[in-house]
């Protein structure tokens, strides 16, 4: 079975948070394909096109990765480090979405090159809003690598 390509990779081990995030993104029509990785190892396999995801291509990276820090198997900072230090993957925008308030996490994350870092609001509605805002900013305001946002040709008469 060929792995679908994903617009957004959501790395989240909490089912609740994952559901909320997907709901928010789908609601804004921000992404057609969202893939959920449940732990750091799955996230790395996905991004590095190996293991169960060996049929993925480096030429088709997700447009955005939403990454929690506290993950089983391999934690978020390690995922961040590996992705940002490899030229095949270091251009993928990664936004950390975590409940951690630790300064150390902030400092290390930005030092490793995270594109931005956001603390998950505790409130469900606010969390949805947060995901929506992040999605809108990164997928619409921000200029992406596969440039053409919703581009069609210019209108001329």
């Amino acid at each position, binding site marked *: 079975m060929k792995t679908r390509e994903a617009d957004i990779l959501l790395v989240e081990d909490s089912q609740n948070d994952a559901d909320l995030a997907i709901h928010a993104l789908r609601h804004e029509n921000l992404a057609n394909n969202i893939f959920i990785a449940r732990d750091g190892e799955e996230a790395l396999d996905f991004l590095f096109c190996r293991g169960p995801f060996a049929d993925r291509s480096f030429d088709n990276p997700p447009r955005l990765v939403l990454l929690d820090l506290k993950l089983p198997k391999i934690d978020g900072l390690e995922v961040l480090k590996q992705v940002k230090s490899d*030229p095949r993957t*270091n*251009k993928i*925008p990664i936004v950390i979405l975590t409940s951690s308030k630790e*300064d150390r996490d*902030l*400092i290390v*994350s*930005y*030092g490793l*090159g995270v*594109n*931005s*870092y*956001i*603390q998950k609001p505790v409130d469900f509605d606010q969390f949805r809003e*947060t995901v929506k*805002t*992040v999605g809108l*900013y*990164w997928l619409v*305001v*921000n*200029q*992406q*690598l596969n*440039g053409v946002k919703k581009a069609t040709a210019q209108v001329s008469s």
Partner: protein
Amino acid sequence: MKLLPELLVVDDNPADVALVSEALAGGLRHTKINSVGDGVEAMAFLNRREKYANSLRPDLVLLDLNLPKKDGLAVLAAMKANPDLRRIPVVIFSTSQLRKDVVRSYEVGANCYVRKPGNLNEFFAAVKSVEEFWFNFVNLPPKENDGLSNHERIAD
């Protein structure tokens, strides 16, 4: 102690710097804007050299690509190579829509890339959404050597 968010605009076009100020003027955030006109000045500001000895390090840098003396990507690379500067988020703000500029920016470590719109209203909207996102939404790293995070500093 209440500190205002600090934005460093690196752009050799004073007209564009003025537009950024206009965009943010009268906003609720009272972002403090500093600007420099070339890459060498940018590094001097960030490293607090000479006349910038008393400047605060910015919380966010809005960086144009085409700069005299030292271009945008060289500034970005220098920031990423410096442990004191590497965690300051950098938003590339450029008229260029060339794929190679976007790709290179991400490769060198830009946090994101926003195109300078040609239309005034869109320009204002872009700048405001950058300000809103980075200063209201995102958690910024604490400035080194004071150990406080921005949220603790801006005691609202």
